[in-house]
Every structure is written in structure tokens, then in C-alpha cells.
């Protein structure tokens, strides 16, 4: 836990101790080691949810819906990670497409096992991320957003349309190994990868690097004049975001098999950015919640109410995302944080 978080916890505990009546009236609040118990219960609940996975929602739709939700969640995490340096990239969808195309290439040209191919695909994102990173070093804010959009548009026009094809003549197919033939089995691969990514990012945020990234976001000038290199940290974050987006693309390929090039339309990045904002920009938990909600929910609605939903799918996206942004400050992460503070007894 960072020093700030510890201070806030202590301050909250002190405040709690000072609050009379209402605080002690609830048995939960007077439980010793409340925070520890709450965390234990939450961990068990999350583990159960992860294990039950798509089976829990089998009444509402196919297992692939949850897989799709997890893939979108991973992509939204990639968008949200960039907020650590205060930037927004619309190139994540292009990086996702590159992940799928690269995995297809590995399958066609090598006999590597899937696990190795996925690792290599993730690492293959570094060169493109460095190119994007160069824009990030030169441009800021809206200028970088436009540059990343241009990069995504160029990638789609010059690369995906040729490699993936369009309409019914699709190529660049990704096939699944026998073990992952069912969507239910694929779910466990994707969810484990996502958990790995989230845990890795959690510890990164609480490490020295995380403190340095927060410092860079707060004041690049002070960071620079203190002896740190903003360029190195920015490139690191752009590469990290690119790797996560590329990994999401590889799983997307495994899930869909073949994908037409318009699936990687740069405009879609704006939609994913909206999910990241609704989830709580910069928050990893929020990004997972936002991605999962907006990724999986429409798939289930498609099955439950096809005649209504298919006509208004983008209205659903837009309206719900807008309502969350307007009515819930801090997005879904904000709701989660407030709820968790109550559980832990913080003010």
C-alpha cells in the first residue's frame, strides 16, 4: 500500500474511532479485523465468480459473450493504462488487430505451441509501440490523440484491408488448439491472462515505477528537472499499453477465428475510450468492470431481445456510457471505491 493510501486508511480509522453511535451500532462495523475479513470475503467471491464464469450466465447467452467481454476488458485496460501518463491513444484497436494478424502469422509459419506464440505476439508489439511512443514524446493531449487516430487509420487502410480482407473473402484466420476448442475453455485462458495483467498492473502502480509515473503525470517539468527521464517512462507506458492491446487482439483472434478488416476501424477506439471513461479513467479495476459490462452485456442482450437490441445497439452503448459518465463521478471505479470504503468503514 502506498504511503498516501496508508495515511488515508489511518485517517479514516481515526475518524471512525471518533464517530460515536452510528459507527458502533452496526455489528459489522465493530468486528475486529474488519478490513481483513472484508478482503478475504471479497477474494473468495471474486474467485467464485471467476470460476463460475460463463456458466453463471448460460441462461442469458453463449459462453463466447463472456469471452468477448473479457477481451474488450483487456483492451479497455490498455486504454486506461495510458491515462497514467495523462495521454489518450486511439491506436489501441490497430494494435489489437496487429495482435490477431501476428498470431495468425505464427500459426501459419511456425509450429510453436500457443503459449509461446502468445508471448511472442505480445512482445512483437514493441516496435509499433515505439513508433507510437515517438509521437507521444513530441505531441501532447489532443495532438497525440489525432496522431494516434491517424496511425490507426493508416494501419487499417494500408495493412488490415490487404491482410485480413473484407466481406466474405476473409483470410488471416486464427485456429484454436484442441484444448481450447470450446468457448468455455477459452474463457479460462482469457480470464487467467486478464487476472495476470491486472495483478501485474496493481503491483506496478504500487512500486517505485508507479510512484514515478504518478509524479510524471502531476508535473512533467518537476519530474524532468529532478533528474528523471520523462521519455523513458512514457515509452514504457506506451509499450505496456500496446502489449496489453496486442494480447487482447490475439485472444480476439482465437475467439472469432477470422475477422474482417472493418472490425479494426479506428473509430471503434473512440467507443472503447468511452468504456474506459465510464469505467473510471486510469483505474484498472474500473477498466475491467467497464470493458466487461459493455463488452459482454450487449452480447447477452442480442440473444435475449434480438429484435429490439439489434436496432439500437449503439444507442445502448452511448446512452448507458453517457448516463454513467454524467451521474457517476469517477465512473464504475468510483462506485466500487465508495462501496468498498463503506465496507471497510472509511468515511
Amino acid at each position, binding site marked *: 500500500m502506498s504511503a498516501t493510501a496508508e495515511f488515508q486508511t489511518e485517517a479514516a480509522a481515526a475518524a471512525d474511532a471518533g464517530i460515536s453511535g452510528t459507527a458502533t451500532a452496526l455489528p459489522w462495523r465493530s468486528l475486529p479485523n474488519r478490513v481483513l475479513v472484508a478482503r478475504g470475503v471479497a477474494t473468495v467471491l471474486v474467485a467464485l465468480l471467476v470460476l463460475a464464469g460463463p456458466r453463471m450466465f448460460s441462461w442469458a447467452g453463449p459462453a463466447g459473450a463472456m469471452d468477448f467481454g473479457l477481451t474488450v476488458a483487456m483492451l479497455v485496460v490498455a486504454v486506461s493504462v495510458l491515462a497514467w501518463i495523462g495521454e489518450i491513444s486511439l491506436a489501441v484497436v490497430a494494435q489489437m488487430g496487429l495482435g490477431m494478424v501476428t498470431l495468425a502469422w505464427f500459426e501459419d509459419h511456425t509450429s510453436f505451441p500457443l503459449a509461446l506464440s502468445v508471448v511472442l505476439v505480445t512482445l512483437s508489439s514493441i516496435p509499433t509501440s515505439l513508433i507510437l511512443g515517438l509521437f507521444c514524446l513530441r505531441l501532447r493531449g489532443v495532438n497525440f490523440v489525432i496522431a494516434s487516430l491517424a496511425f490507426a487509420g493508416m494501419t487499417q487502410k494500408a495493412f488490415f484491408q490487404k491482410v485480413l480482407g473484407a466481406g466474405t473473402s476473409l483470410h488471416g484466420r486464427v485456429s484454436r488448439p484442441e484444448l481450447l476448442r470450446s468457448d468455455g475453455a477459452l474463457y479460462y485462458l482469457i480470464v487467467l491472462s486478464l487476472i495476470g495483467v491486472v495483478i501485474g498492473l496493481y503491483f506496478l502502480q504500487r512500486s517505485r515505477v508507479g510512484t514515478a509515473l504518478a509524479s510524471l503525470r502531476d508535473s512533467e517539468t518537476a519530474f524532468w528537472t529532478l*533528474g528523471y527521464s520523462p521519455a523513458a517512462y512514457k515509452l514504457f507506458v506506451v509499450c505496456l499499453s500496446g502489449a496489453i492491446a496486442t494480447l487482447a487482439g490475439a485472444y480476439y483472434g482465437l475467439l472469432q477465428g477470422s475477422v474482417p478488416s472493418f472490425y479494426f476501424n479506428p473509430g471503434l477506439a473512440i467507443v472503447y475510450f468511452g468504456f474506459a471513461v465510464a469505467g473510471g479513467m486510469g483505474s484498472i479495476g474500473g477498466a475491467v468492470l467497464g470493458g466487461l459490462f459493455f463488452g459482454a452485456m450487449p452480447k447477452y442482450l442480442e440473444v435475449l431481445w434480438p429484435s429490439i437490441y439489434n436496432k439500437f445497439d449503439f444507442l445502448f452503448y452511448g446512452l448507458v456510457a453517457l448516463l454513467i459518465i454524467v451521474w457517476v463521478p469517477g465512473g464504475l471505479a468510483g462506485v466500487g471505491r465508495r462501496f468498498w470504503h463503506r465496507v471497510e468503514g472509511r468515511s
Partner: protein
Amino acid sequence: MSVLSERPASLNGRGLVAKRELLVIEDLAISFGGIHALRDVSLTARTGEVAGVIGPNGAGKTTLFNCISGLLTPDRGSITFDGHHLHAMGNPTLRARRGIGRTFQTPRLFRSVSVLDNLMMGCRAANAAKRSYEFDPTLQALRPEDRARRIADLVGYEGALEAPASSLSFGEMRVVELARTLCASPSLLMLDEPASGLDVEQAQDLVALVRDLADLGLAVLLIEHDMSVVMGVCEDITVLDFGSVIARGAPREIQENQDVLDAYLGKAH
């Protein structure tokens, strides 16, 4: 804020180091469009001395700091630091690692992390640059966290180190920013209006601390509007007006200089 009598015991008994030229600026010039922000500015900062840079608003003082710390690239002129031309170490990162530390006119703390994290960022920067603490060599042996705590004591920060930096008052922010800069173990300490936002007592303590740091071997370059601070602590003062040096000398000479009086009060004073 600390005063001499309150400084850690390790600092007592030291001081009055040999003076040498650490920073030499010659004929520095920079313009933005048609505006000459600096014109043929020359000055020298020596170890063990506090050099002041004063002038009316818009005189070019902060621009000078930005050129020295590498945030701006001058059009011409030379800056030599510790015998090295600064053109050879272009960006602020390298300059900071060489020992140029600075604060800002408006404190630029890392607001989303704690005070302690701010200070430890400075300590880690010193570690990465393998720099030693000229003003207190005993700090070198300490862990970054202990070092940060000692320097917080040195500058007289009395608040909670675990507090979020965003929760500090303006005066505390100034003190913590100074502490963070010291944590990075500078040889040259550039302070941009460090007394602004401080009350009279705090400003007096600041004077004592700056004097103390200079006695312990740092070269200090000070921009300040508060004349009691400038006159109380500086050995040498350079006066800028419209980007040019209009006077240079000891505090008493500057106080009586007609050009300086004209620049501050107007010709008709």
C-alpha cells in the same frame, strides 16, 4: 522552518568551505519572437555563496533559470557548470544528474503522492545519479526513507510525511519542494522566489537555512522579490531589467544604484 540552532547535529561544526566558481554564464541571450527575454547576461555562482537575481516582473529571471536547468535552449552565449559546457548535456535530466537542482515560482509538487514519496523521488534520483550530499555527507549512508526524513527535519517541515502532497498549504508546499530538491543532492541550488507565500518568521528561517546550506558548500542562486531576504542572504546580486543586466554587486551597492532604483520605482521617483 529550521534555524541554525535546530539543524541536525551532523551539520553543526561544518561550513565555510573554499569558494570556487561552479556556474559561469557568459553573454547568454534568448528571444521569443521579437522579444528579447535575455540579452548578453553574464553571472557567476560560487560554492559557499548565495548569488541573488532580482528585477521587476518580466525582467527575465525565470527565463534565466529555465536556460540553466535546460528547459529552454538559449540562442547564444555559454553556460559552464563545474567545468563542463551545458550545451553538451542538453536536457534537464542530465543537468539534474550533474547537480543542478531547482524549485519553481509556483511549487510543483507531485500532488497525487505523499510528501514522503515526493522526497523519496529526490533521494532515488540522487542514488541513480550516484551523487553524494555535499551539504551533509552522512546522509549518504542512510536508506532513502531515512534520508528523506532527515532532510524534512533540516528544512523544518513539521507536518505528516504520509500526508498527500495535495493537502498541504502553500507555505508547506514551498518547504517540501525545497526539501525534495535537496534530496536530489544538488551542488547548485536554484530557488525561484522561495519566500513568496511565507510569513515573516518563515522567511527569516528561510534566510537562515539558505545561508546555512551555502556555508555547507552549496552554490545558491536565488530569485526573490522580498528585498529583506535578498539583502539578508546574498553576497552578490545581479539585477535584470528587460532581459539585460543593469547592475551587479554587493547588496549595499545595489541598494544605492540609480539604475536599479529607476527600474523598480520609475524614473520620476
